[in-house]
């Protein structure tokens, strides 16, 4: 019994950072809920939050992998966003290709941009900071060459992806968006089935599992949050298409980082590159793939952002890299690598997003917003350093 308690305490301790960020997110939500007289939490604004932050979320998911490999950041993602949005205009407007094809070409082009950077970082061993700083200038320049400094409107499909909602198959089109509610229920049910089967399999293998009461509380709480969330969206226009994309990305990348050999190799590389290499891990390949992947996700973010703006513009993606990097660090990634999670980065991105949105509703000047965001980043990382030094002392 004492052992179980100790184990539980260890689990809480080791997850404290992440829970702390979740708690911070909730506190910030409640705080701005009050400060904005509830506007922040209105269904319309919740949808808006998702649309507004979708591209930063996508970037943060890719960025956290880069950071995991050893504190490497990618400074070029904002410029890749600009590059791909310009390329989208080129494919679909200048060349007149169908929108779906130009989207696929855009994603491939992003992948190539990522491979280009991955090549220099992994195989030529140029520090990621320098390679991506070069990429930051390079891809921004290509954007300007393609667009010649002009802003070009894009086809409808782009706008659909970035700002559209799923059609209401089951509802009347008036009032509540029934399909969204049903999807919420289905997702919650799938989650419950998964949770129960994994618990049973763990038990059968003879591994420790959390107490039954705790387990029930957890699945009820998570199901309730899912349903409340979809219900909220249903009160507005319904489930945004981009939310499905983001949920899929979070799911896929959480799976990759926690369950696959490749994911474990990424953590090992960041934890100790030498030890990883001597354990037979192809560290160059891992580094290359992580940056190639970042290019792909930056391209997706570029397409979404272009759709959101309804156009390709020369200033697209400006400072996105900084927002994405900040999201990862707020979400508990370590600046030296090997520590961090996809979910953490997502929470970090939401914290930044709610701060942005909440402060603009209050009508705070943009200068103050930057100051506050800067301080939040600093405090979050200071908290991390402090809790780590305490953990070290207790050893």
């Amino acid at each position, binding site marked *: 019994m004492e052992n179980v308690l*100790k*184990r539980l305490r*260890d689990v809480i301790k080791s997850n404290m950072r992440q829970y702390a960020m979740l708690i911070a997110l909730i506190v910030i939500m409640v705080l701005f809920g009050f400060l904005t007289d509830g506007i922040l939490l209105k269904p319309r604004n919740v949808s808006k939050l998702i649309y507004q932050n979708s591209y930063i979320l996508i970037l943060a998911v890719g960025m956290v992998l880069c950071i995991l490999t050893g504190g490497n950041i990618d400074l070029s993602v904002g410029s890749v966003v600009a590059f791909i949005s310009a390329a989208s205009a080129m494919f679909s407007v200048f060349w007149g290709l169908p929108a779906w094809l130009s989207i696929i070409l855009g994603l491939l082009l992003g992948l190539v941009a990522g491979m280009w950077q991955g090549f220099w970082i992994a195989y030529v061993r140029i520090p990621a900071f320098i390679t991506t700083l070069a990429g930051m200038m390079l891809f921004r320049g290509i954007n300007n060459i393609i667009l010649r400094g002009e802003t070009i409107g894009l086809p409808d499909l782009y706008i659909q992806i970035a700002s559209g909602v799923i059609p209401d198959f089951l509802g009347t089109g008036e009032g509540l968006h029934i399909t969204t509610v049903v999807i919420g229920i289905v997702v919650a049910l799938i989650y419950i089935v998964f949770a129960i089967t994994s618990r049973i*399999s*763990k038990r059968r*293998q003879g*591994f420790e599992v959390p107490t039954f009461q705790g387990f029930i509380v957890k699945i009820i709480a998570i199901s309730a949050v899912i349903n409340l969330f979809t219900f909220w969206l249903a009160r507005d226009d319904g489930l945004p298409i981009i939310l499905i994309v983001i949920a899929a990305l979070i799911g896929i990348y959480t799976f990759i980082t926690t*369950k*696959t*050999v*490749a994911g*474990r*190799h990424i*953590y*090992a590389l960041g*934890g*100790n590159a*030498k*030890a*990883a*290499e*001597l*354990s*037979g*891990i*192809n560290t160059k390949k891992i580094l290359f793939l992580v940056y190639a992947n970042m290019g792909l996700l930056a391209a997706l973010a570029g397409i979404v952002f272009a759709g959101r703006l309804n156009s390709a513009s020369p200033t697209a993606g400006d400072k996105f890299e900084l927002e994405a990097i900040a999201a990862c660090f707020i979400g508990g990634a370590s600046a030296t690598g*090997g*520590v961090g999670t996809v979910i953490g980065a997502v929470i970090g991105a939401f914290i930044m997003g709610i701060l942005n949105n909440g402060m603009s509703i209050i009508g705070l000047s943009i200068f103050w917003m930057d100051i506050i965001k800067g301080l939040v980043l600093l405090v979050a990382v200071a908290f991390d350093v402090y809790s780590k030094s305490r953990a070290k*002392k*207790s*050893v």
Partner: protein
Amino acid sequence: MMAKNILEMINITKTFPGVKALDRVNLQVKAGEIHALVGENGAGKSTLMNVLSGVYPYGTYMGKVKYMGKECRFSNIRESERVGIAFIHQELALIPYMTIAENIFLGNEREKAGIINWDHTNRQARELMEKVGLREKPDALIKDIGVGKQQLVEIAKALSKDVKLLILDEPTAALNDDDSDHLLNLLVDLNQNQGITCIIISHKIHEVTKISDQITIIRDGTTIETLVRGVDEIAENRIIKGMVGREIVDRFPRRTSHVGDVGFEVRDWVVYDPMDEDRIKIDHVNFNVRKGEVVGLAGLMGAGRTELAMSIFGKAYGKKIHGHIFKDGEKIEIKSVGDAIDKGIAYLTEDRKNAGLILIQDIRQNISLPNLKRMGKRGIVNENIEIRETEVYREKLNIRSSSIFQNAGNLSGGNQQKVVISKWICSEPDVLILDEPTRGIDVGAKYEIYTIINQLADEGKCVVVISSELPEILGLCDRIYIINEGRIVGEMSKEEASQESIMQRIVQSSSEERVAQ
């Protein structure tokens, strides 16, 4: 004549949350002596010295520190340095890209109004370097000189601060026998001619018995006894007994070897230096290992032992590698480390912390790292298999820890080493190359690791042991290859080999080389 005590530590108790690291420890050091502090890893030696030097400030421990007759309450290292106490840590505190002179006067620059006088710096550095017998230019970079010389720079740095009490933590742990001898002689010289009192923490008991005037033994945070030269009998066995609390009748577990056919063979192996591709590092080396045999690679530090092992292990070291490797009589090509592991070869690094373990990850993740592909399907790790397999090794190798979910960084040296060994046994190799398998771990854990090595041989594996400690090679191996300057210069059976015969072979081969040139 009874010398006065320069240092008295009285009833020192230091607790960390949950652990009592020191429990009323007493230490008396006489002025002008060499005093050795011995004990197993984790016994509290370093903690005690950290209390003395102010790393743990006054108030965080209980008890009294009296230095030169006065009670001291250091709140940081600077204060203890000011009264002439210098602590040279095991991990040297030198800056690789700065020169020897700059390092000697780091934080203590020869300056006026913040502007450094380089003439003074270099002249005084040269004087200090002469004193410690360091023959290098003062403007040589630290990264370009060997560990032995770096150690001397640390001592010169201490001398520059007018040291009266010099504390050295495991000064010879990373040194070969020559450099160790030089260092120990230097300590004796500083001690006799300059009146510097030394406290030396060491695992190498034969060194301690050679140079110290008094030896204090610490075990589990308490003082066991202090042996005084001339009064007590200073014998290795007695010290070991005091350290581990039991008499180690035999430091090496017995094994009757059942040697089979040749399982692993390397022929005409040539490796060039990756930094300087014209320099040959390994020169046409031939060796073989039979199944169930433990083969030793003996040689001085820098002889090319690690380079040989790592170049075989999937070209993890070296350029322009060529030669032939045979396993079970068949020729194999090893292109990468992953390839080597797949072909049943494992290499345990000598550098546990920097190249062996991921300290921020838990025992489970460390053990499974090279074996993940096997522990799942289609690139997805089956955590159930992972947990079950790693748990087996935690029990089998007796890794003292709360669970397999404990971080590797929180384990003691011996248990960390067992984790690295588990990782490689788990990869089910036929050939194991163990590079300094017991470096920096205590006597009890060493015995456990020797037992593991014997078991591996009994299972019919080919085991290669690289070690700087000749007694270890002699105690473990069936056959010994002697390597010097990148070449195999001798092969001896267990019966023929002795510390003297091996050293003789090394020295002879070096002089033959010179004659040949």
